[in-house]
């Protein structure tokens, strides 16, 4: 992450980014801006070379700016000045939370995944440090401590999502979680033998075709409140071939990101620890590789899940809901959380339904869903509420088991089916499910991230906890 220094001046920065409300271009730059047609309109930028270095004007428009406007402005600054080692963000006109959002945007947008290059890319980013210039350094520093936790959690998640399947096996995923211990997070790993002993038959089935056995990671943040924890459950398929119902070759490489839900759940726990949240919280990550192999589970198999319910497997490529079914039921029984939120790159259906600009949000509790949606809106990670209808659940009636996990026909509302399936495994715990298949990774750069993983969900969960779960 960028180094962010907070102070009244920026002595060594060679470029400065300045947010500008409509019609409020600084006096000294007014002629230059006018020559470029820049007035401060929302989303427009103007770069001016001056004796003091590069000046980047970031238009905010007429409306009173909210956090997301400043995050996006900071992100535009980072994108435009990525080749400059050290920049200043002029936050003197901003209240502390907006100043922090300004820096957060720059940090989010500047992230790149460079670990696996043998030599640096020609366009490798040089930007490494930001001076956040403010007249109220103490207040901004406090706001930044809060905001930076979510940013670090999101970047931790992105680093995991970007890793290819040969690097990030289930075992390697577990190893990457170990350093979180130094932030006060307790880490437990349930290996294959333990999963067998406890009867997580659905998770085990999904992982049985791979040379890398499945596991379940449990991350606990104690917090200080005397209350049951809030639980995040994330789908962690380190690579998804589809299993015996193998996917088409085209685009299969993107399936290295099929663990983005687990990465986001882990990143959210990290964020809570970094800002020393009082809320007890828990991340449960069922991690497996869905491989084609001589030992793979098959269409038609009946699985005995941790909950005791039997599941008819229809399509082995709908594996995410199987690992989540066990993880949700296990979390509900072992920890009785206040609320459970799961995140999963679950269905292509949700991409057809909502595209890339909203995650799908399903729930068994309207109040929780409203809070999740609100948190998403506030941090720029929007989610749209979708239904679980009676018919969606009825479609899953099996002729041979307690439930079947999907339908094989084309043109199905598979996102609704997936959510209806999961609901059967959460019992009476307030629960929300985020289908993030359309938002976890993008083929091109977006407002708050470069091409690749977005880290979607980390900042949403951090905000949700901060707003609703830090009192008993």
């Amino acid at each position, binding site marked *: 992450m960028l180094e962010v220094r907070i102070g009244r001046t920026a002595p060594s920065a060679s470029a400065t980014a300045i947010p500008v409300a409509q019609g409020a271009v600084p006096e000294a730059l007014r002629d230059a801006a006018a020559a470029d047609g820049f007035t401060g309109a929302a989303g427009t930028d103007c770069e001016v070379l001056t004796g003091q270095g590069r000046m980047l004007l970031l238009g905010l428009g007429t409306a009173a700016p909210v956090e997301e406007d400043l995050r996006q402005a900071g992100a535009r600054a980072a994108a435009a000045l990525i080749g400059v080692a050290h920049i200043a963000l002029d936050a003197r006109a901003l209240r502390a939370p907006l100043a922090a959002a300004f820096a957060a945007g720059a940090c989010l947008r500047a992230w790149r995944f460079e670990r696996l290059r043998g030599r640096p890319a020609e366009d490798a980013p040089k930007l490494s440090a930001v001076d956040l210039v403010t007249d109220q350094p103490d207040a901004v520093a406090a706001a930044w401590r809060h905001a930076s936790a979510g940013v670090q959690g999101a970047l931790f998640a992105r680093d995991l999502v970007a890793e290819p399947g040969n690097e990030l096996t289930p075992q390697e995923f577990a190893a990457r979680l170990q350093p979180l211990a130094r932030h006060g997070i307790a880490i437990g790993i349930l290996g294959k033998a333990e999963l067998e002993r406890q009867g997580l038959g659905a998770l085990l089935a999904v992982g049985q075709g791979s040379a890398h056995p499945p596991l379940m990671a449990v991350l606990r943040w104690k917090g200080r409140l005397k209350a049951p924890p809030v639980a995040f459950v994330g789908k962690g398929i380190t690579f998804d071939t589809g299993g015996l119902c193998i996917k088409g070759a085209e685009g299969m490489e993107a399936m290295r990101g099929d663990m983005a839900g687990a990465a986001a759940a882990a990143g959210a726990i990290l964020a809570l620890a970094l800002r020393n949240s009082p809320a007890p919280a828990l991340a449960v990550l069922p991690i497996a590789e869905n491989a084609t192999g001589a030992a793979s589970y098959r269409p038609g198999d009946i699985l005995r899940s941790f909950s005791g319910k039997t599941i008819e497997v229809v399509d082995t490529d709908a594996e995410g809901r199987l690992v989540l079914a066990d993880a949700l039921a296990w979390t509900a029984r072992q920890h009785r959380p206040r609320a459970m939120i799961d995140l999963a790159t679950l269905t292509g259906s949700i991409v*057809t339904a*909502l595209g890339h600009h909203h995650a799908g949000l399903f729930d068994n509790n309207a109040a929780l869903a409203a809070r999740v949606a609100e948190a998403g809106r506030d941090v720029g990670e929007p989610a749209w509420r979708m239904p679980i209808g009676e018919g969606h659940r009825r479609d899953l009636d099996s002729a041979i088991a307690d439930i079947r996990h999907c339908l094989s026909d084309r043109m199905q509302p598979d996102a609704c089916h997936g959510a209806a399936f999961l609901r059967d495994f959460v019992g009476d715990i307030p629960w929300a499910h985020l289908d993030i298949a359309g938002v976890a990774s993008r083929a091109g750069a977006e407002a708050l991230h470069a091409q690749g993983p977005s880290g979607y969900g980390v900042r949403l969960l951090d905000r949700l906890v901060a707003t609703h779960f830090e009192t008993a």
Partner: protein
Amino acid sequence: MLDIAFAKPALPKSGALVLLLEEGATGASPTGALLAAADEATGGAVGRALAAAEFKGRRGQTATILAPGAGLSRVVAVGLGKLEGIAARQLEDAGGHAAAALAREPAASVAAPGLSGEQAAHVAMGLALRSYRFDRYRTTEKPEDKPKLAKATVLTGEIPKARDAWAGLKAVAEGVFLSRDLVSEPANVLNPAEMAERCRKLTALGLKVEVFGPKEMTKLGFGALMGVAMGSANEPRMVVMTWNGAGAAKGKKPPAKPLAFIGKGVTFDTGGISIKPAAGMEDMKWDMGGAGTVVGLMAALAGRKAKVDAIGIVGLVENMPSGTAQRPGDVVKSYSGQTIEVINTDAEGRLVLADVLWYCQQKYDPRFMVDLATLTGAMIVALGHEYAGFFSNDDALSQQLHAAGEATGEKVWRMPLGDAYDKQIKSDIADMKNVGGRPGGAITAAQFIQRFVNGKPWAHLDVAGTVWSGKDSPTVPKGATAFGVRLLDRMVAEHYEG
């Protein structure tokens, strides 16, 4: 339509009897009066049979007893569940269950003691809705294989109230049946001209009906609609149906702002040059389902003399591949003046709606516009067949639609709009293109349509998953559903009359 009558609760001397029973009903329960009589007349046979069938009166539970004695050919018990707070929709479902169990009986008495007159009328509505059958093209079916139910007498203590309520509901049922008939018709029979002729017949209900042909629409500048139509030998039509119910009721000129309902009426959709695969293409006869609903709705409003001013407009075309058909890459100029690059000729519904919506808002300055269209496969992948998806620029209208959907069982779910989606239909050569890719396919279609509503309050219902059903439900036999007629009739009645 099933012949419905109302009579005082009394045990019939012969024929079939339906007992609508609340959960745990006995002879002493409000709904159990005729259960006691039937049980006594049959020497206890009815009670013993229901016990043997483990009939408890749970909602949706049914049990049929054949020839139990006392001259009765059949007794059907239908569970109502708990009576307290029972919704009209649930009573209609009970009527539907009864109708399904009565197919072999020419006439039946349906006992609804303990229910209000209005509730009894909803039972009648359910009986009627489920008894619908599209039978025009069966010529060799044996008489004994045909459903026989022609008359149902609902037994209620509140006959006048029941008759009053039924008069309004019957008009809605007739609208539903008109819509189901239109949607069921094959495309070689129901082309745009034929559908316009069927609309013309609605003048009998007091509707004003105007029909526009290709000349008029070309003259107006309907470049988007005409582009879709030009591949077919069957000429397009636009039909405007006007109902001045508020003006008539108040004895003065109609006010300026009517409600407007707009329907996509592609009488057959081959996909055009971007032709669809053969499998399932026969379903595309129902690609005029949105228009079918609008026509049925206008018939319902006129039939029950709704105190409202409303306009129904349907754009009717056939989408065919041919030497004169529109091509991918063509640019057309819509009636609004905006240009459209046609990337995929199978995204034709939005082109038709573009011109009709612009015309509607410009000519009528409506209070709101609600359009219905079997628009996208993406909608089916999003929500399936249980909900229609809808999009709106108006929160109050959205809430009204949602509530009316819950009340009638024609459920709708709001979906998002936004600038990020709108960007997906940017064109390199024209003002917009007509498809935005697979991601969010129903949303980008709605974004396209929104560009033609000129900021008016508007909702778009994508009914691709709901106009046709592959299986029976309590009040909708499989086939054409007329989805939206009851929903919109209800919304009008709740919020826009009086």
